[in-house]
């Protein structure tokens, strides 16, 4: 079913803490890099450095040259991967998930623009990713923890960035964007719609998915 065992199921504090880790949307590589660190490495500083390097490389036009373009995901991965196992309980660790999003969306947009990918296609790919990231937030608020295979199948931010970087290296950037948008769109869309429609309709109690929002609501 949809509600699998999830971290901190009986401890609200741990549950909300592990939501932050889920919001990072790490893929298999980042999770693997995090394992040896046993959660000892604080995540904020490396994420900030990775964001800064991404900005510098993108501004320097790295996205247009295939070699340096490959460099961005590797740097981001090597910097932020090892701290992916950290419980994210530092006072400012809530900054990490939005930073990861900024790196991912920024890189995908910059690489796509530089490599001449159709701009509506870039828009669609980022919209698909945004759907997935909003959905992760909404479902963890309803204690519908995403299943572990979804983090793998969704490739994670690391996997997605590497796929487009390698495609740029091989000269297939537009194809990679189209394939990713189609594959992830179907995966995230179908899985999410199935989960939510299966999850009961009227339970009679007030449900508010947006109660934490500010800019959003």
């Amino acid at each position, binding site marked *: 079913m949809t509600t699998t065992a999830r971290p901190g199921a009986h401890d*609200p*504090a*741990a*549950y*909300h*803490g592990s*939501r*932050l880790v889920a*919001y990072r949307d790490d893929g298999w590589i980042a999770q693997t890099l995090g394992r040896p660190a046993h959660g000892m490495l604080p995540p904020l500083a490396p994420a900030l450095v990775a964001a800064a390097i991404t900005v510098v490389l993108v501004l320097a036009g790295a996205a247009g040259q295939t070699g340096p373009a490959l460099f961005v995901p590797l740097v981001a991965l090597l910097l932020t991967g090892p701290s992916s196992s950290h419980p994210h*309980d530092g*006072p*400012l*660790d*809530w*900054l*990490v*998930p*939005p930073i990861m*999003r*900024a790196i991912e*969306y*920024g890189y995908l*947009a910059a690489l796509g*623009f530089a490599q001449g990918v159709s*701009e*509506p296609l*870039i*828009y669609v790919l*980022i*919209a698909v990713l*945004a*759907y997935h*990231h*909003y*959905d992760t*937030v*909404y479902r963890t608020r*309803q204690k519908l923890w995403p299943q572990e295979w979804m983090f793998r199948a969704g490739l994670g931010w690391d996997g997605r960035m590497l796929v487009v970087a390698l495609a740029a290296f091989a000269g297939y950037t537009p194809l990679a964007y189209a394939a990713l948008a189609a594959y992830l769109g179907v995966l995230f869309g179908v899985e999410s719609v199935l989960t*939510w*429609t299966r*999850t*009961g*309709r*009227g*339970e*009679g*109690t*007030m*449900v*508010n*998915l*947006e*109660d*934490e*929002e*500010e*800019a*959003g*609501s």
Partner: protein
Amino acid sequence: MTLAVVLATEPVGGVGEEGGGPTAALPYGPDTTLLERLLDQLAALGVHDSRIVARRELAAPLHKNGHDVIETDDLADDLRVVAELARAAKEPVLILSGDIVAGDELLVRLVADSKAPASAVISRARSAGPPTRPVVRVSRARVVSAGSRYHQVTDPNAVFRGILRVAPPETKRLADAAAELAGLAGSLRPVPPIRTREQVGGEQLERFVDRDAEGDLDGSSSRKADWAPPPVLATTPSNGDDVPALLLTGLVRSGVRVGARGVRVLVCERALTPEQAAAARAAVEAVDEDRVRLDAAVKGDDGFFTTYAVSTYSWRIARWTARRRLTPNVVTSISMGVAVLAAVWFAAGTRAGMIVGAALLYVAFVLDCVDGQLARYTRQFSTLGAWLDATFDRAKEYVAYAGLAVGSTAAAIGSSVHGGDVWRLAVAAMAVQTCRHMIDFAFGAAKRRVAGGEQLPVLPLDAPDDSALDSPPQPPRAAGAPDRKGLGQTAIWLSNRTEKMPGLRWAKKIVILPIGERFALISLSAALFNAKVTFVVLLCWGLLAAGYTLTGRILRSIA
């Protein structure tokens, strides 16, 4: 399901006056009693499992009315019964006096909406003179100290109205507290209800309290004044032991987080005399509950645009849709459909298209407000509905972006609608908006983690007062100045201060560009100018808003 434990232990007209019977058997109108009405109200809410606890000497009138009664001998016995029931309960437990006269809406909210582990119905309205109802001190929508005949409250600011709801797993601590109180029942000594220290005041600075984002916790903000009872009500002190008040004290002193649920305009009174029963009935009937529900359905903490350009009339549409028996999900879907139409008109790349699209986008936003109001008004809540609403909100906005981007390129070169190729701007606007949401979500999760981990103080139940909660004396400081140094504390102090100035409060809400302002901005800039202007303004304002919220929250987090 909910288990109701109804305490009918209060005698009419004083202890030992046999003839009076229990207050719960007082008449409510010509053909029913307070207790019968209460049980009917509960049954209508699906609470069929009601246990009535009454003293042996008072039970006869209740038996006569056909009630099944658990008979007890004294206070210790009452508490032991509650302990056993709470210990066995797998469902939420509602503890209430049998002489409660409450409006349906109040009971519905308590039984159906409460997600708090424990909540108590309170009222902020305090009568002059000595209190005749148990007093409590409420801080930040939580009961921090509760009083009973044997427990004093320092500087109380509210009155307990006699209904307590406890959900598992806290039912276990309720059982523990009841059992402990049963053991103490013989040795407790009456004390004056109020201890005055007047240490309340000054702003309690609390880490992570984000006023901008803080919603109406448990429906008890002081946004609307509490209903003031007619003088005849709540003037008679109770004679018997107030078991719900004792249990509330027991829970609060065990360190259970008890939410304070304000009555606002609804009635929730104990009637101890026939006159009070009649007055309470009149008070209940004077409240237009449909209107109260409709008012409550309009969210109170919305943004400026939503409050003044949508909520002023959207409740009429909500009521109309309710009468047409439309479901919230249908309204949500229509809203999405209208937004798609808006995007199609935007995509036409003509001035007329931009104006029609702008109008349709506004309609979509109004319908988006209506679906939530309809859901709250008709109590049709569902997980699926909440998901549809949240997801479609995002989809509507990003579909509009795409429509604008298409239209900008499609427009005739040289026309005022033509903004050139703005897809990059559209991508950037979407990425910035999504990242802004992620900041909110991640900060919210971190805030919940801190709030959940907080340990509340535990006080012994045999202590007559709550002096253990007294805050340590503070060194004198300049009035109104932040009480601790540091940028973070100053920022929180500044934020709390500006909340009290209406102009600044709205300015703070507008600067973060909430959904209403965003939709209005898109509509206006698209209708008057073109997509390029829309995206440039969205981007600049969005980045400014992100900087503003990030600064505030970083300062809060390190304070």
